[in-house]
């Protein structure tokens, strides 16, 4: 079936992109100015102690050798030793934080995907009328706010004003995220603002174009009531492009994650990346950035497959009867 062939081709291509990504990130981080060992040992380190550390960390090996060792480790899930905190394996802190970020991202998705589809469809159906104008304007306005601006507005209203939600997202020691779900609400809402604006506008325009299609006119003139035509005929075709849009926007979602986690101090992958960059902890930076791109590329791949699966034109080959 050509669907499987397409699946295999796309999967291969996605893995290729990830490989190319890892090479790009590795060299991008490597060429950064400043001597890593010098930074670790601090300003007082003597020349020979710096040289000793460089040797121990294999910083002087040829570049490709170091890349292979690092990539090998990454595949096995061992992200190597944190340069900054000697003796601390990146794994211990990395995967917990990734877990938190995935939960936050998922909550944001849970908020904005149904909402933007609901409003997008509603605005599309009522094209040109009052609700359409209102929803489009709201969409435009929220899309224009960077995450931290909407975050600050949310903080002033909910955390400072009404004081019903925590201003900072901290997990007390010994507890885990699931016992403190309230720290998820404000960060997720800040991301929802931007994503809602973008996706609802896309959903609206896709709904509008589907409503103008010939087969909708044919269905109505077949005597089918308008509501039935909207749900059974229009919705299925209108939702297809939205899947790809959500997939493509994962990049924005992760960009937004970093900003929001910094604003709320949320212990996720975003704030870990920020502190990694600040402390120039090279292996940690590489791990974080590569993981973000891995999720992003994988998400696009999944949405591609979902689109191909749900779209009969692609799923079934053109068989002549």
């Amino acid at each position, binding site marked *: 079936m050509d669907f499987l062939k397409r699946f295999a081709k796309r999967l291969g291509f996605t893995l*290729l*992109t*990830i490989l*190319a*990504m890892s090479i*790009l*990130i590795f060299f*991008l*981080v490597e060429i*950064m*100015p*400043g001597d890593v060992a010098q930074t670790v040992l601090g300003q007082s380190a003597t020349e020979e102690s710096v040289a000793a550390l460089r040797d121990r960390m294999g910083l002087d090996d040829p570049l490709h050798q170091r890349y292979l060792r690092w990539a090998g480790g990454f595949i096995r899930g061992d992200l190597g030793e944190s340069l900054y905190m000697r003796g601390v394996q990146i794994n211990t802190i990395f995967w917990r934080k990734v877990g938190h970020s995935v939960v936050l991202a998922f909550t944001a998705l849970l908020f904005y995907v149904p909402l933007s589809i609901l409003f997008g469809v509603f605005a599309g159906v009522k094209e040109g009328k009052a609700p359409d104008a209102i929803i489009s*304007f709201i969409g*435009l*306005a929220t*899309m*224009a*706010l*960077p*995450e*931290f*601006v909407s975050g*600050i*507005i949310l*903080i*002033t209203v909910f955390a*400072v004003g009404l004081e019903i939600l925590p*201003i900072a997202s901290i997990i007390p020691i010994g507890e885990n995220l699931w016992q403190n779900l309230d720290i998820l609400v404000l960060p997720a809402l800040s991301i929802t603002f931007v994503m809602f604006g973008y996706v609802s506008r896309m959903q609206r325009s896709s709904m509008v174009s589907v409503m103008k299609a010939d087969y909708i006119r044919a269905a109505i003139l077949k005597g089918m009531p308008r509501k039935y035509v909207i749900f059974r005929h229009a919705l299925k075709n209108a939702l297809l492009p939205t899947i790809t849009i959500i997939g493509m926007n994962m*990049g*924005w979602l*992760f*960009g937004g994650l*970093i*900003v929001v986690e*910094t*604003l709320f101090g949320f212990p996720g992958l975003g704030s870990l*990346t*920020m502190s990694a*960059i*600040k402390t*120039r902890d090279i292996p940690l*930076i590489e791990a974080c*950035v590569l993981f*973000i*791109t891995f999720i*992003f*590329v994988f998400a696009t791949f999944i949405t591609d497959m979902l689109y191909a699966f749900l779209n009969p034109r692609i799923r079934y080959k053109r068989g002549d009867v």
Partner: protein
Amino acid sequence: MNTYLLQLKRSPRAIAGLTILLLWIIAALIGPSLLPYTYTGMDMNNQMVGPGEAGHLLGTDALGRDVFSRIIYGSRSILTIALLTSLLSSIAGIIIGFTAGYFGGIVDTIFLRIMDILMAIPPLVLAMVVLGILGNSTIVGLTIIVSITYTPATARVARGALLTCKSSEYVDAARIRGESHLYIMFVEILPNTIGPVIVEITARFAYSIMMIASLGFLGVGLQPPTPDWGMMVIENKSLIRAAPWTVLYPSLAIASLVIAISLFSDFVSKVMINED
């Protein structure tokens, strides 16, 4: 040209967007010279005074600097960067997108692969990693880095616009006249892709403002004391309870500028797209 003005008159949202944008541009051009305070002047007796007090329209920040003049001056740097970025990335995007789209074949597939890879890293992360290491940079540095992260997106749009024109018959007609590739690309096709390209430039303008503000917020914006709206927000974040105006007004400034541009670019896309 008058058809555009006619349509403009009929869409209130576009007018609102345009007026706010023009206000900001005027503020950026002549604002700083009219202000009573310089953006770095420290009035240490009036630290963190509220809006309207002691002659400060929007109050002062922790160092006693006038928030209003810092915002006005900040508009100058953010507008210049955003303008330069959207122009730079669009021009680069057109050149790359056109060559790839026009010649097709391997050139095109290589281009697409590279674009996929570059687009795989969220632009904010890419810019942050580079800026984070180089430390606070100047307007030129920020512009170059943000333009590089946006070029893949504009290149893709330019390529799309070219492909729609390339398949039409007037290009075939030009080919069998023996016209050169450059002539076909930039004399025959370019004028017809102006619509989507202009739409892309205005959209990119709005996105780059958001990006620059976010980078400032993450602490990798402009070198102090040049006011950078994003930096102003993060610097005064700890005052959110004591002096909320120091955080709120820069945020509202960012919001108003970005919304204004989005409204206008929304209008431009409506006019441009259904025109050709």
